[in-house]
C-alpha cells in the first residue's frame, strides 16, 4: 500500500489509473472520444450537470472522457486530489495563476525559470496587473523577504532551467505556508517518477506534458495538479475559492468541495472561460507515454549519469552541470528530493565559446538540434547560436547563460552511440578551433 493509501504501486498506476476498460466494447486501450459534446439523458439531467450536482461531461472544452483519464492518472501519480489537462504546459501555468489571483496580485518566483515562464512573469502578466519578484532559488530567506501583502503565490521549478538548480521544496514551502501562501512548482524536469513535490510540501504542480510525460515529442499539452492540502479558508487571501461566485449561482468552492476546491474552480471557471483545453487525441498520445514513464525515466537517468561522467573527462569541455556531480551546489538536496535520479538534463561549457559551440552542434548526427526537451531521442541546443543569438556576452551572463553553454536532453539511445557522437563532434569543434 502506498503512503496515499492506494493499494496499487506507481508503475501499476502509470498503466491503469483513471481507466476502466470500456464497458460497451471492452477496449483495453483508452479510447479517443473525438467528440465535442455529449447527449444529455434529459432536461433535468442536463441542468443538474451544469449546476455541478451530478458528474459527467457536457462539452469537451470543459471535460472529455479521454482527457479525464489522463487527469486522473497524473493525480494518482503525483498523489493529488485532481487535475486539469490543458493545451500546453504554459496554459496550465496561466490557469493555475488566474484561478487564485487577479489584478493587483503578486508572485514570488525563483529566478531559475524556463524562458517562456520568464516572459510570462516579466512582460505579459504585468499587463494584466500581476507582478512578480524573482529570487535566487537557493536564497530561502530571499523568498521570505520578497513576500508582500499582495503576494498570492510562491513559484519555482523542481529542477531549474537551464541551470539545473534543485529547489529546496520543504524550506520554500515552509516560507510560503508561514505567509498563508501556496507553493506551486513546475515539475516538468522531474516527473512524478523522480520527485513527488506534494510529499515535500508543495501545494500545486504544473507539468509540460509535452516533455518526459508524453516522452515522444508528438504532442503539446499541460497538466495542472491540485495537492488538496492547502487551507484556502484559513489563509483568508483567496476569495475566488472561499466566497460565493456569481458565475456559478453563488457557489462557494471550499464550502462545497473541500480539498478539491481549487481544481473544481480551475475547471469550472478557467477551462470554461479561458478555454485552453487539451484535445482528446493529445491526451491519448500523452497517456501512451505515461504507460512507460517508469521504464523510460530509469534509462533517461542512467544515460544522463554516464554522459555527465563522459563530459567531465573530456578535454574539450570546460565545465559540466548535473545535480548529481560532486561539484554541484545542490548535490545533497538532489539526493534527498530526487533519490531515483536528478533527471536527464545536462548543461556543459564547450572550449572555444560561441564558434566552437556552433561547430559542435553542426557535427552531431545522433543528437537532434532543436528547441525541446524530454523526448525519447537525445536533444541538444546551443543557446548562444540559436535562441539567444541576439544577446551579447554580458546580456547572456545576466540571463544566467554563457556563450559556451550547451544544453543536453539525454534520451534513450544506446549509451555508446551517444558518447561516440558527442566525442566526434567535440573533436571536430576542437580541431576547428586549433586550425
Amino acid at each position, binding site marked *: *500500500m502506498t503512503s496515499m493509501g*492506494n493499494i496499487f504501486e506507481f508503475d501499476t498506476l502509470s498503466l491503469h489509473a483513471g481507466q476502466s476498460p470500456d464497458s460497451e466494447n471492452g477496449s483495453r486501450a483508452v479510447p479517443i472520444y473525438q467528440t465535442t459534446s455529449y447527449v444529455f439523458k434529459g432536461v433535468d439531467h442536463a441542468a443538474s450537470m451544469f449546476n455541478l450536482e*451530478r*458528474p459527467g461531461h457536457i462539452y469537451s472544452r470543459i471535460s472529455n472522457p479521454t482527457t479525464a483519464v489522463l487527469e486522473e492518472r497524473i493525480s494518482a501519480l503525483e498523489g493529488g*486530489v485532481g487535475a486539469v489537462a490543458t493545451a500546453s504546459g504554459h496554459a496550465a501555468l496561466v490557469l493555475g495563476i488566474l484561478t487564485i489571483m487577479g489584478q493587483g496580485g503578486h508572485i514570488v518566483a525563483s529566478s531559475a525559470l524556463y524562458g517562456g515562464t520568464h516572459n510570462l512573469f516579466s512582460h505579459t502578466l504585468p499587463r494584466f496587473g500581476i507582478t512578480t519578484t524573482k529570487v535566487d532559488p537557493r536564497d530561502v530567506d530571499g523568498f521570505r523577504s520578497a513576500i508582500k501583502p499582495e503576494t498570492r503565490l510562491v513559484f519555482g521549478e523542481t529542477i531549474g532551467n537551464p541551470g539545473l538548480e534543485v529547489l529546496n521544496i520543504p524550506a520554500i514551502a515552509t516560507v510560503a505556508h508561514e505567509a498563508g501562501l501556496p507553493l506551486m512548482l513546475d515539475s516538468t524536469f522531474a516527473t512524478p517518477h523522480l520527485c513527488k513535490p506534494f510529499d515535500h510540501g508543495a501545494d500545486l504542480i504544473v507539468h509540460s506534458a509535452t516533455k518526459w510525460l508524453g516522452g515522444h515529442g508528438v504532442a503539446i499539452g499541460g497538466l495542472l495538479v491540485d495537492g488538496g492540502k492547502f487551507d484556502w479558508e484559513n489563509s483568508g487571501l483567496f476569495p475566488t475559492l472561499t466566497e460565493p461566485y456569481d458565475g456559478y449561482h453563488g457557489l462557494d468552492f471550499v464550502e462545497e*468541495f*473541500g480539498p478539491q476546491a481549487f481544481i473544481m474552480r480551475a475547471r469550472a471557471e478557467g477551462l470554461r472561460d479561458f478555454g485552453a483545453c487539451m484535445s482528446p487525441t493529445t491526451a491519448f498520445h500523452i497517456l501512451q507515454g505515461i504507460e512507460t514513464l517508469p521504464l523510460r525515466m530509469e534509462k533517461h537517468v542512467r544515460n544522463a549519469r554516464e554522459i555527465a561522467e563522459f563530459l567531465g573527462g573530456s578535454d574539450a569541455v570546460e565545465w559540466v552541470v548535473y545535480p548529481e556531480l560532486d561539484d554541484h551546489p545542490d548535490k545533497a538536496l538532489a539526493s534527498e528530493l530526487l533519490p531515483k535520479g536528478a533527471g536527464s538534463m545536462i548543461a556543459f561549457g564547450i572550449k572555444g565559446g560561441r564558434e566552437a559551440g556552433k561547430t559542435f552542434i553542426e557535427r552531431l548526427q545522433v543528437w537532434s538540434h532543436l528547441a525541446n526537451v524530454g523526448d525519447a531521442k537525445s536533444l541538444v541546443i546551443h543557446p548562444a547560436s540559436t535562441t539567444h543569438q541576439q544577446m551579447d556576452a554580458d546580456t547572456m551572463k545576466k540571463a544566467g547563460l554563457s556563450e559556451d553553454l550547451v544544453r543536453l536532453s539525454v534520451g534513450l539511445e544506446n549509451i555508446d552511440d551517444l558518447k561516440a557522437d558527442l566525442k566526434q563532434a567535440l573533436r571536430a569543434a576542437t580541431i576547428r578551433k586549433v586550425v
Partner: protein
Amino acid sequence: METQVHGKSVFFSTGGAKFNNAERTIIFIHGAGMDRTVWSMQARFFAHHGFTVVNLDLPGHGKSEGPACATIEEYSDWLCELIDCLDLHRVSIVGHSMGSLVALCSGAKLEKKIQKIALLGTLPKIQVHPDLLTSAMNNKHGAFETIVGWGVGRKAQIGGHKAPGSWIAGASMRLLETSKPGVLGNDLNACNVWEGGLESAGQIKCPVLLLLGEDDRMTPPKGTKELTKALHNSETIILHGAGHMMMTEQPDQTIETLSDFFE
C-alpha cells in the same frame, strides 16, 4: 451556514440553495474522521430538487467547533438538539458508516419527526481492528492509509471516476489528513463500543434504505442480515463495484438510488 448547539458553533452546507425549515429536509451525516464534503454532489442535487439540505460537519469535524463526541449516543443527542435548534419537522436522515450509526440511534429517538432514513455503508455493530484503533488513537498516518486502502473500493482505486479529473483515493486521504488530531481514533472508538444497533433498529418505524457497496470491505453487505431483520420497513440496494465510500465513488448511482427512495 452556521448555528449553535450547546454554545458551540456548528457548520453545515445547504448544497448551494437557501435554507428553509418549512420544506422537507434531508440531513447528511458523514463518517469517522470525514466532513460534509463527502456529500458534495448529493447535497447539491437534493438542494435543487425539492429539499432543504443540512449537510453537516459533526462536532470537531470540518468547520464545526469541537470537541468531537465520544460516543454514538452523544452524537445522536447532539443531532436531536440541532434538529430542535433548526426547528425542523419533516426530516430524513442519510448517514454513512459512523454517520449511519448516528442515524440509527437518532431515528429511534425521534420517531415522530423522522420520515425516512438511508444507511450507507452500514452494519448494526461496526467493529474496528485493535491495531487500526491504536494507530488512529496515536494519530499515525498508517491509520489513514488503512482507511483509504480498505474504504475506497478496488475499482475506484484504479479510477475512471465520473467527475472529470477527480482522484477519489487522494481526496479521501486529504480529508482524513485534515481531520483534527485524534478525531479519527475517537470516532472509530465510538463505533467500536456502540452495541445499540439492533435495539435502535427495532424501534424505528419509518422506511429505511440500506445502500451498500458490493466491494465494501469495511462494512461488507453480508453483515447486514440481522439489521434488516430488526428493521420493520426496510429495503436493501447493493451498488455493483462500489466500496465503502460509495457516495464519492459512485455519486450518480447514489443520487439516483436516494432519489427513488425519497420520492
